[in-house]
Every structure is written in C-alpha cells, then in structure tokens.
C-alpha cells in the first residue's frame, strides 16, 4: 500500500511516498529525508532525544505516525540556525555547558525552544526543570541545561522587546 504525504520540513515542502504505513516521523526524518540531527534514543517516548516541533509544538517524533501528519509543518534541529548564526538556545547550551556527549542535545534544544514558546515556565528554574523532564541526559548536564534555557529565554525576550521598540 502506497501512501503519499506532503510535509513542510524546515521551511521546505517535501512530498513523500510511503511504501509502508509503519514509518514514524522520526524514521522518516532520519532514514528517508537524511535529517539525522534528530536522534533515536529509546524509540518509546521516554527519553526525548527525538523531540521536534510539529506545527510549533514539541512532540516525540518516535511516537508519531508519519502518515497521520500529512500536511504538517515540521521543525528539526537542522532548521533552527540562520545560516552560520546559531539559534539563541543553541548558543546558550554552548555558553552554559548544557551538554557533554551531545547525543540528547538536539532533543534538549528542540524541547527548550518549545518550552519557551509555550510561555508557562517563566524564570522559575523549578518550572523549567519540570517542563524539561521529558528529556533525559545520561551525562547529567541538567544544571547547565536549566541555566541555558533560562538564559536563552531572557535573550529571546530581550530581542523581541528590541524589535518591538
């Protein structure tokens, strides 16, 4: 059974022929569109390494059936920088040592971008930690991650205010 779907991935429209309905969004990105920045950790929705934004919301791409997302707008780690200019969340992870081995980092960064967009955590580190609890880091870089998220949130808010002024 062939399924034809269309997705916007990092701003580019992609038409995909699915020869198998079992393909998850994660496998579609990695195996068919060669976007390997999104990582496969547990593949069961427990680690968050596969986090991407779908229509602006962070989700686990390992538990999303690609066929069901026909027409969706997907943002992955490959699409967040502007050319050579890092996204403020990427820059903050580097500045605060929010990583060690780096495997969970694309998922952490996409989750952080989603969290900041949701606007629920504010500047409360406890709310940031709770809001990031779907992303495991086995190197234990959590304190740097929390600082990075808080810092990036401030710089994004400043930039927004700067634009509005």
């Amino acid at each position, binding site marked *: 059974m062939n399924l034809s779907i269309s997705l916007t991935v990092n701003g580019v429209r992609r038409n995909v022929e699915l020869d198998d309905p079992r393909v*998850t969004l994660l496998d579609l990105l990695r195996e068919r569109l060669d976007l390997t920045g999104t990582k496969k950790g547990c593949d069961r*929705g427990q680690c968050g390494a596969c986090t991407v934004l779908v229509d602006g919301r*962070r*989700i686990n791409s390992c538990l999303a059936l690609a066929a*069901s997302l026909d027409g969706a707008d997907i943002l992955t780690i490959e699409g967040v920088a502007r050319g050579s200019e890092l996204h403020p969340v990427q820059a903050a992870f580097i500045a605060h040592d929010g990583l060690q081995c780096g495997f969970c980092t694309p998922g952490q960064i996409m989750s952080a971008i989603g969290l900041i967009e949701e606007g629920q955590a504010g500047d409360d580190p406890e709310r940031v930690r*709770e809001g990031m609890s779907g992303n495991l880091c086995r190197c234990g870089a959590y304190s740097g991650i929390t600082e990075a998220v808080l810092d990036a949130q401030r710089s994004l808010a400043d930039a927004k205010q700067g634009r509005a002024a």
Partner: protein
Amino acid sequence: MKNFDYVRPATIADAVAAAAEPGAVYLAAGTNLLDLMKGGVSRPARLVDVTRLPGLDRIERLHDGGVRIGALVRNADLAHDAGFARSYPAIAEALLSGASAQLRNAATVGGNLLQRTRCGYFYDTASACNRREPGTGCDARGGENRLHAVLGWSESCIATHPSDFCVPLVALDAVVEIEGRAGRREVALEALHRLPGDTPQQETVLEPGDLIVALRLPGDAAAFAAHARYLKVRERTSFAFAVVSAAAGLRIEQGRIREARLALGGVAAKPWRARAAEKILADISPGQDVFRRAAAAALAEARPSGDNQFKIELAQRILVRALTLAATGTPERVPALPASPFSSVAGALIDA
C-alpha cells in the same frame, strides 16, 4: 511491528464503520498505541486515524454551567485553558502531573481514557498475561507486584489503570459521549472501565466500532473549584506514573464541608471513586480526625495483591494530605511540581 492497513476517514460515521471490523483500532496521537505496537503487545490489522474528524477538538461551555470537551483536545491545551483550569483546578493539576510536556502536547482526551495498563507483564510478550492473552495466566501474581492493585483485583489480573486525568474526572461525575453502530449514547466515566473479574481482556464497556467523541462535566462540578487538589506519589519527581494518587474536592460553606468528592488512582483497574469516604465528609467541619476516618473508609475493602500492603497505608496518607491541601484552598496557580508531595520551595506547605 506487525503491518496494518491505514485509513483516515473524514466523518464519524465512516470512522465507526471502519473500526467495527475485526482487528481494527482507532489511532489518535498514538502515544500509547504506537508504543504497544512496537513491543508487539498490540497487533492491530487496521488503524483508523481519527485525527482529522471534524468538531472533536473544542472545549465548549454548556448552558447548565458544565463543560464539554472534544475527544481530540490535547492534554496540554485542556490543562492550559485558563477558564477550564479555573473551574476544574484538580483536573488541570492531574493533567500536568502526567507524562512529559512532549507527550501532553500530543496525547488526546479520548486516548487518555483508553490508555492501557502499565503492568510490566502486560508489556512483556514473553510473560503470561490474561489481559493481553486470555487464559494464559498472570505472571504478576508471583512477580514484581509492589505497584499493583489493592482494590477490585481478581485472581486473573492485578493490573492498575494508569491515568491521572481520570481520577479527578471520576470524582466530578464526568460523562463520556460515545458514537457507535447504534448511534450516540452516554456512559458515566465511572462505568466506562471494567474491573477484571474473570475477563480482564474486556477493559471497558465499549463495543466494536464505539468511538469516544466527547467528555462532559456536569454543572455542579465547578462548585469544588475553591478547594480542589490532586496529589500523586511517584518513584521519581516528574515523568512517572502514580504509585498512588488522590483527587479531593470540597464544597465548604461557613467553615463546614457541605459536600466532598474523592477518588484514588493507581489502586485498581479503574479510577476509584471513594463514595463511603465522601459520606463521612458530608456536612462536617474539616479536620485531621475526620480526614483519617474518611481515608480509612476509602480503603476499607483494600487487600494486597502481592508485595503491596504498603499501598493501603500510603493511599490513606495521600488521601488525608489531599484533603488537607484541598481544605486549605486551591493555589492561585498549579504548583511548579504539579501534584507533587515534594517541593523544593523552602517552607512550602507541601514539603515532605
């Protein structure tokens, strides 16, 4: 994962017809179903994708003061709907204490109700499980069972229902709207899930093709908003299922409890309404002694199904704590650690 046919109907009638066929199941976000399919626990022949069905993603206020929640409303959207959270704070808190932000962004209201047990033996296809494969036995009985049921279990099955959301819902008399082959009908949420008995594979009262289209809260459910909490003991601070949880809602007038609503999670194969405890709390002044009496009544029928005697005492303590917090008053905003008995805020009431 076993291969399957994928269909995406455009109308509810087409969805019901497609899902009434043997081997067919509904797919919404898939956060539980895909996980089960990857493990070979669920092996459907057909997925009926309901995500594009029209009109199922709305939160509507009703004339009687109640609310109707479409089955496709996402958990995060419901929890963060300001009007909803103000009227039903314990439900918002329960939702935010469940899963992770990513999963709450995807998971739907209908899917939450129909999520399967998290019993490890149900998930392990090499283990005997009457719920997954009727007649094979129950390896949980002699296995790792400290998290299993203490109420309503049978020799066939000691699994629990994992939902947080369902616990305050059942306390507040939520009703489920179902579209089936014979048309529309309604079932009280309390009657949706079955206790295992000799047929644990029959988890709900739903028939083939039945589709949950909405959830309704009656007009009087918002009367508990000023004194409503959900409390959940987990084995880690966040992103874990309940060991035991409790929802408590009090209607307090002139310092007296006029009416109480109580339910427990993590103790049975369904969200467990504690009516005997509610009776004890009707028309009485709030206090530790009466809370303890109510908690004892709630667990009066409980018995361990294995290495889980501790859950009977734990559930009573969590009920007392939930009642104490509810009597103190609903916080302005859901706490940073929703439903947690722990808090890193120094001096906070809910410090353990």
